[in-house]
């Protein structure tokens, strides 16, 4: 005999709330943060920043889609509250902070919401990292970190060239090598190499399941690889500049590409090293 069970309207709402899929919850969070996505989209569309973030966004989406069957139907309350608090902060940031800082809070809020429905033991740090890298950060990184990175690079390059027996001095981001003035210019800051290295680190960690703690322990090595790579690239180019009147763009780009590939390969090796690190 069939039995019809009539639900009270409140109970029907309760049932509906409890049956909302994890991806729908993430969609709600994302929708609440719409001004940040509009800003990031505008930055991407107007071309004032490198579109590298699209690669991070694509990697993030692939990761979420592949993990979708594993996501929890019932989010963890603590992480839900944390995500809600970050969403509120990101909204307040619209009124008081630069758009990029607000957008960082927004992606961290969304990554925290994702954490609330992720199964236990899954790496979260690389996912949050990819979310931050998906933002248009390269231009701002170049503005704020470009000069300090060039000073550090020029200083270490000067030591290296002195060790190689060349007469080298540094003043600011200008180097004097064998009596020739060589300026360590904005493209030599290594900001794009920094982005690529951390992107590689996050992708490898996310897709091979490197534990958050293990990833944290390896991030300094990633930074060191970038610094070494940038110093090597800069030293080679400065040494060439000091001996030739003009080094062609092709040589600049060729050296840069070779070093970038080597750094990324090193980062992949560092992140994949050690089976015990995997979740």
């Amino acid at each position, binding site marked *: 005999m069939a039995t019809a069970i009539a639900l009270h309207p409140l109970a029907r*709402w*309760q049932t509906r*709330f*409890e049956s*909302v899929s994890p991806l729908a919850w993430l969609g*709600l*969070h994302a*929708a*609440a*943060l*719409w*001004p940040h996505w509009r800003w990031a989209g505008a930055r991407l569309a*107007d*071309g*004032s*920043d490198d579109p590298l973030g699209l690669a991070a966004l694509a990697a993030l989406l692939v990761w979420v889609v592949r993990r979708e069957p594993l996501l929890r139907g*019932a989010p963890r*309350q603590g992480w*839900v*509250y944390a995500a*809600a608090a970050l*969403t*509120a902060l*990101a*909204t307040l940031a*619209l*009124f008081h902070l*630069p758009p990029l800082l607000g957008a960082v809070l927004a992606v961290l809020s969304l990554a925290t919401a994702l954490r609330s429905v992720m199964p236990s033991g899954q790496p979260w740090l690389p996912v949050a990292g990819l979310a931050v890298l998906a933002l248009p950060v390269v*231009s*701002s990184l*170049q*503005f*704020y*970190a*470009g*000069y*300090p990175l*060039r000073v550090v690079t020029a200083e270490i390059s000067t030591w290296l060239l002195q060790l190689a027996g060349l007469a080298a001095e540094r003043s*600011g*981001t200008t180097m004097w090598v064998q009596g020739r003035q060589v*300026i360590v*210019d*904005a*493209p030599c*800051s290594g900001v794009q190499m920094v982005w690529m290295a951390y992107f590689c680190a996050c992708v490898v960690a996310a897709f091979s399941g490197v534990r958050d703690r293990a990833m944290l322990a390896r991030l300094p090595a990633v930074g060191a690889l970038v610094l070494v790579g940038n110093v090597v690239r800069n030293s080679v180019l400065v040494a060439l500049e000091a001996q030739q009147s003009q080094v062609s763009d092709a040589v600049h780009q060729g050296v840069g590409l070779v070093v970038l590939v080597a750094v990324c390969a090193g980062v992949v090796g560092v992140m994949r090293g050690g089976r015990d690190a995997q979740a």
Partner: protein
Amino acid sequence: MRKPDPWLARLGVVLGLAACALAPLGREADAGARGSAVAPEWPVAWEGRPLRPLALGAFEARFAARFPGHIARMTDGERTLVLREVREPTRMLHPAADCYRALGYSIAEARLERDAQAQLWRCFVAEREGRRIRVCERIVDAKGEAFTDASSWFWAAALGQSTGPWRAVTVARAL
């Protein structure tokens, strides 16, 4: 203390998210407070040629509305000069290449160059739909010290090694 029912907690979160989604709609543009300082005295000549002021383009006018300083656009009949002046270090004094990219130009041949007075400039060629423009820029502080990139200027200004007001000069010439 008893934990709230999960569905009630979810309802609270949904209401909070809705409030966050709606709050920015009430945001009012933060205009007016900026640019209230007296406008600077702009040059009347450039390398011996008289300058005449030009109106800001639509893109420049939108940017100027939220720029924490002053912007002027001028021409000497052959070249277009865009002058931006600020009294404090700001991210808004970004490289001219960012502006040209935002306008749909591709950037090539970026390099440092010295002019006839041995002054260092950052130069590049911006190209869009077959139109090529040679653009050079530098930032000069109150003592005449110059910077060829925004990052080194920002840190010098922020650390007190350079004194303002600072003027970014961008010179564009059609090729």
